[in-house]
């Protein structure tokens, strides 16, 4: 291809069709681009494969804004983490997890869709999106799809996004978060409060009616190739009394122990991750949110 000048507008498509066409020509879509920029910079030093050229999806109308339709909250893929955190529509549990990502200057650029598409097992938004049963809305030349987040992420760094598709939005039923009986928990364990990737993270939420758990959900991040959410453990807790937390912990900790399979890496060790995750879960149940 020639090196002739391209207009910037070409790389700021306004429609899904134009975006699909750019992808098929070899362009990579970015939301904020913060992670790709860091990776590319590192790759240039080591001679690795750089994701280039890039285009931005921010002028595609349906990737912008945060909307509600009935109980469904929908977050456009071009929305920055800061804009989501600052939105009155954003549930506190999601805001808390997004505030744990990077630092203010990155959160003003980076997007939630980017955090999801990176598909890092340590992505801080993922445990919360798993317990909210978030759906990833995609669009491409073959049409639109709505994919549960746990199916969207297929392996570390890999998603089920097809070649010609972009993520349009992330949506979930937020009504549970507005229930008076709703309680939530989010805890990220990292080396420092800002700019640290997680050693592990835990998100949990539940309804508590008359001291009884219902709709209990818990997800563990960075302790297996994918976020761990176990219906077997959740079923065990639902319908039980909050003040029987220590007994509940005794019953479900073995279930979580079996499912957690963390790795040793530069951020932490397998043993530390597993032990800390299990202690946080046991503590959460004993203290009863």
């Amino acid at each position, binding site marked *: 291809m020639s*090196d002739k000048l391209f*207009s*910037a507008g070409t790389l700021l498509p306004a429609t899904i069709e134009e975006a699909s066409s750019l992808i098929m020509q*070899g362009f990579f879509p970015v939301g904020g681009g913060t992670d*790709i920029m*860091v990776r590319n910079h590192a790759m240039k030093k080591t001679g690795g494969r750089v994701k*280039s*050229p*890039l285009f931005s999806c921010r002028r595609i109308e349906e990737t912008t804004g945060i909307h509600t339709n009935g109980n469904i909250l929908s977050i456009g893929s071009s929305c920055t983490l800061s804009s989501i955190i600052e939105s009155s529509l954003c549930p506190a549990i999601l805001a808390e997890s997004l505030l744990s990502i990077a630092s203010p200057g*990155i959160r003003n650029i980076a997007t939630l869709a980017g955090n999801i598409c990176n598909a890092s097992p340590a992505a801080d938004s993922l445990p919360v999106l798993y317990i909210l049963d978030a759906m990833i809305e995609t669009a491409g030349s073959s049409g639109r799809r709505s994919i549960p987040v746990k199916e969207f992420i297929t392996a570390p760094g890999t998603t089920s996004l097809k070649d010609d598709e972009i993520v349009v939005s992330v949506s979930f039923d937020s009504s549970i978060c507005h229930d008076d009986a709703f309680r939530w928990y989010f805890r990220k364990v990292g080396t420092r409060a800002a700019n640290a990737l997680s050693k592990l993270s835990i998100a949990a939420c539940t309804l508590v009616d008359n001291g009884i758990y219902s709709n209990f959900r818990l997800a563990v991040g960075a302790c297996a190739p994918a976020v761990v959410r176990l219906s077997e453990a959740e079923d065990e807790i639902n319908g039980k009394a909050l003040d029987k937390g220590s007994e509940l912990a005794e019953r479900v900790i073995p279930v979580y122990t079996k499912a957690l399979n963390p790795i040793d890496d530069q951020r932490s060790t397998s043993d530390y991750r597993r032990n800390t995750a299990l202690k946080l879960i046991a503590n959460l149940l004993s203290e009863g949110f």
Partner: protein
Amino acid sequence: MNKLIKISFLLDGRMFSVETKSDRRLLDILREDAGITGVREGCGEGECGACSIFFNGRLANSCCIPAIAAEGAEIDTIDGFSKTEEYSIISQAFADAGAVQCGFCTPGFIMASAALLRENPRPTDNEIKIGLSGNLCRCTGYTMIIEAVRLASGRMARNV
């Protein structure tokens, strides 16, 4: 595939255009093409905040912004910001608090301090720590920098 694109944005209040690649770092455009060397490269990984700018009025790490994202944006650097009254107050506070040693991180810290004080004119110490959490200083430690933001906050309040 590596075609050049023409990117235009408002830089410190003036239109600026450059022909570049879509994935070039805004940091490199600012330093190499616009000659604004007050925007520093520290880590190049979004960790140190030395390259902090205002991107559409919000604090941002310019090492993490691809050129294509800058098209049509309003970008303010330490260069333009240094001509404002806000800057005078903050930089004087940094000097008075002894918050500058080698000075490499200082432009980034001043931008982050300004962004914080715009959003929250009377921050608590904890809010200052969060506001500056994306900036690293390897000389002074952070006590004097936090003191500088406290000083600037007080002086701005008196100036109103």
